[in-house]
């Protein structure tokens, strides 16, 4: 070939990432906007306190809701930022470093958040 670019290995990953962004985006459309509506508009931060959260987490519905939202938002956001980093950081070393930090932070916070939602015990039950 006359000057073809560098070989480009295919993994198919980008295709799945692309689909995921759209699927999770549409899920978040309801989850995140619903969340905003409930927490920031119908109630607002003035009225929200520990008691409120405790009451809410008494039902499994809201726990599932928040868990789903957390996972979708986190993975959507991490992948989104991955795209951004890959766009602007071209030096190999910096790219690897920044992506690694993104994934670590993402993983840690996802675990933290999931634990918080799953292990939360309302004081009354204690």
């Amino acid at each position: 070939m006359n000057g073809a670019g560098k070989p480009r290995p295919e993994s198919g990953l980008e295709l799945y990432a692309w689909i995921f962004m759209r699927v999770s985006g549409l899920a978040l459309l309801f989850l995140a906007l619903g969340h905003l509506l409930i927490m920031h508009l119908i109630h607002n931060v003035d009225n929200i306190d520990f008691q409120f959260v405790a009451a809410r987490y008494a039902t499994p519905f809201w726990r599932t809701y928040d868990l789903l939202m957390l996972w979708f938002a986190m993975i959507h956001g991490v992948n989104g930022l991955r795209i951004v980093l890959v766009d602007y950081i071209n030096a190999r070393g910096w790219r690897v470093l920044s992506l690694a930090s993104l994934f670590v932070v993402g993983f840690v916070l996802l675990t933290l958040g999931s634990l918080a939602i799953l292990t939360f015990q309302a004081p009354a039950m204690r």
Partner: protein
Amino acid sequence: MVKPLEYLTYRGGPGHWSWMLHRLSGIGVFLFLLIHIVDISLIGWGPKVFNQLLFLYRHPVFRVGEVGLVAAVLYHAINGVRICIIDFWPQTMAFHRKMSYAVGIIFAALFIPTAVYMLSFIIK
């Protein structure tokens, strides 16, 4: 290569602006999410710590920030829908400019009343 400021000096179409806003709002919301997870997990530390933290949230600076957050999520969400429509129905690309403007209009229609409503709490 192309310097950051030059992203603004290129006279692209409405799609160019939509993309910049989508990207900025996405990054913004993501950063908020990171913080938000940390504070929410504090709930495990019991009511005292958590409630104290919520005072922070009630500070006016935070309240204005909250409006910004709603703006970012709202824009990102509506524009995200536009992107999905375009992706799955390529025929719609014939009206790509109009669609970007439509996102702007829908965003304004939803956001302005919401913002007024939310800001009214601070003044109270």
